[in-house]
């Protein structure tokens, strides 16, 4: 406990310096603005702003604080387009549209927006408190991890991905493998052998992480916008004067707390983030409401509060495995992990011990970011909602220009610009075919970690593959990996059998 308090002390002393405080606020503001653009979700928002934040040349803890602010802001800004436009910015916001948009159309747009701000705030705060309690515990556990345990952890992470994320397990695995394969391009660090660089000098150092992120998320998003633009106009619900009341909050307080917890726990599971968390929370609330839940999907405030709280709960939860084990808990945290690596900060069990100012500074900035978002959003939501009315013909070139600025300002290499266009086309095709893009980026970020740990484990054992199954930790992780694949199949079989029995009666 003392350790947590002193850590938080360190963190706040970093995050409360005027400069960093300004960055949190600025990041939240910019993140909300870009997240509120129609169709641009948090992951795209963070992707588009990441290279620019990197190019500013701040010290690592400041840059990370800025990014965390953007991440938080974009998570919130995405809700505005879900509620007012019925266009979810990402998979995590789909559940928000179910009750949020009907509320707005029933003349409660202001209430829906303010309630989602409060629910997000509670979800975010609950998860960041839990994170500061459990993070260091998990880190001290992770210190003992050997390379073979890391291999088991990766297997667990990809099992979670395959079982819980995306439309079909095979497609999710293919996506992850594409990411892993992209990560093998470049000179092998252990032997100096070139792999898949075909003598192109720009590929010797491997494909830059930022290029993959901007290409797959930013540029693919642009093609998606261009494609959907032809198909008719989006209509915005105007904001009205309605506002969340204490009675609403009293009615939803347990919903919000439960959903925050669900969100946090699902966020901690490697690979699964906001989309799974919000879906599970929404389903749980609907089931618990029983007969009183007939209004779900038509504008029930509980149906809006649950996914919103779970969403932000998972945002904090997803940072736990990333900061403590180096395994990102979701697609967006995979981007943050890549950002850490760019600053030569290796997240993992040693981070809390070696770079406390970064680990705790980030956590403290999330406390501040939560408050900042609530303060920014309740009065300024009208301003952010104006972003929705930016016509598509200005928005589309704007995304491309932001992406070009970000990519070019890293090293000034025009070759990178062609790479992001190519990856953008590829990402758009993947999206059209119902592939989730988050597994690709997770695979890409985890690729070298996975490979290096496997090779290190086998050099320790002198080539004996049994080392992979030699420790208790690894066996537990393999068991969990099997469980996470088998249990959902078993559950769906069981519920189908129940349904069949019910029909017989």
């Amino acid at each position, binding site marked *: 406990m003392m350790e947590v308090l002193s850590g938080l002390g360190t963190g706040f002393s970093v995050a409360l310096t005027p400069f960093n405080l300004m960055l949190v606020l600025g990041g939240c503001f910019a993140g909300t603005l870009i997240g509120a653009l129609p169709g641009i979700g948090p992951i795209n928002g963070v992707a588009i702003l990441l290279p*620019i934040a990197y*190019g*500013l*040349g701040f010290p690592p803890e400041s840059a990370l604080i800025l990014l965390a602010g953007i991440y938080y802001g974009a998570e919130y800004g995405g809700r505005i387009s879900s509620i007012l436009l019925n266009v979810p910015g990402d998979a995590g916001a789909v559940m928000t549209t179910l009750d949020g948009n009907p509320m707005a159309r029933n003349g409660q747009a202001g209430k829906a927006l303010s309630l989602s701000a409060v629910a997000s705030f509670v979800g975010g705060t609950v998860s960041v408190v839990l994170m500061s309690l459990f993070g260091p515990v998990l880190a001290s556990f992770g210190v003992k991890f050997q390379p073979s345990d890391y291999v088991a952890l990766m297997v667990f992470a990809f099992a979670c991905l395959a079982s819980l994320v995306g*439309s*079909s397990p*095979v*497609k999710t*695995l*293919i996506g992850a*493998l*594409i990411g*892993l*394969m992209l990560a*093998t391009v470049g000179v*092998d660090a*252990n*032997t*100096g*052998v070139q*792999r*898949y660089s075909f003598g192109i000098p720009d590929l010797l150092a491997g494909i830059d992480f930022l290029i993959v992120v901007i290409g797959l998320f930013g*540029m693919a998003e*642009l*093609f998606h916008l*261009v*494609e959907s*633009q*032809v198909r008719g106009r989006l209509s915005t619900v105007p904001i009205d004067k309605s506002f969340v009341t204490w009675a609403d909050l009293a009615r939803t307080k347990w919903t919000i707390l439960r959903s925050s917890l669900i969100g946090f726990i699902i966020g901690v599971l490697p690979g699964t983030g906001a989309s799974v968390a919000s879906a599970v929370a929404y389903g749980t609330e609907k089931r618990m409401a029983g007969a009183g839940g007939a209004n779900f999907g038509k504008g029930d405030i509980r149906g809006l509060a649950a996914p919103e709280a779970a969403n932000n709960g998972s945002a904090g939860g997803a940072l736990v495995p990333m900061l403590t084990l180096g395994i990102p808990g979701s697609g967006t945290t995979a981007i943050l992990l890549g950002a850490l690596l760019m600053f030569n900060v290796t997240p993992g069990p040693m981070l809390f011990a070696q770079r406390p100012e970064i680990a705790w500074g980030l956590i403290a900035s999330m406390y501040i970011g939560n408050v900042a978002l609530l303060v920014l959003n309740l009065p300024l939501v009208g301003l952010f909602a104006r972003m929705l009315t930016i*016509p*598509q*013909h*200005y928005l*589309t*070139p*704007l995304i*491309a*220009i932001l992406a*070009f*600025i970000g990519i*070019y*300002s890293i090293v*000034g290499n*025009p070759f990178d*610009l*062609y790479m992001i*266009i190519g990856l*953008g*086309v590829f990402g758009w*095709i993947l999206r*059209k*075919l*119902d592939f989730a893009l988050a597994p690709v980026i997770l695979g890409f970020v985890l690729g070298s970690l996975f*490979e290096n740990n*496997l*090779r290190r484990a*086998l*050099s320790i054992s*002198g*080539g004996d593959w049994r080392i992979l199954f030699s420790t208790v930790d690894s066996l537990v992780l393999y068991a969990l990996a099997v469980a996470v694949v088998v249990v959902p199949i078993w559950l769906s079989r069981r519920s189908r059998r129940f349904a069949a029995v019910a029909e017989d009666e």
Partner: protein
Amino acid sequence: MPDRIFAAALAVVTLIYGALAFFVISAPFQYDPLGPEAWPRLLSVAMLLCLIGLLWRPATRDFDVDGPSWARLALVLALLVGYAVLFQPLGFILSTALFAAITSRLLGAAWPRAALFGVLIGAGGYLLCVGLLDLNLPAGPLPRL
């Protein structure tokens, strides 16, 4: 059907990837049991297994893009490539002004507004990014800030 085509195309890429891993990549000398080729070999085998699964049971019904959308996508792609080609030689201000004006015009803005948008974004973006944020952008033939 689109799933099958995609899986087949990716299978070709994976076969090349795997062939390189099995027959080409090798370290001149190494002390570790696993060299640089082992991991790509594993990946290519896993990928082929998954692709066989997708070929066996495709999930997406149709690709669902109509004619006008294809035309517009191709146009935007061409504009992007043109922007990338001109980015360094023309410099940020000129290339961005051109790209922004033409793209917004083609996507539906009126000429005067599109032109104004291009000029504003080109000049304003340069002032903001280079003057205020100190980012590295090409100046082209225009004098550096």
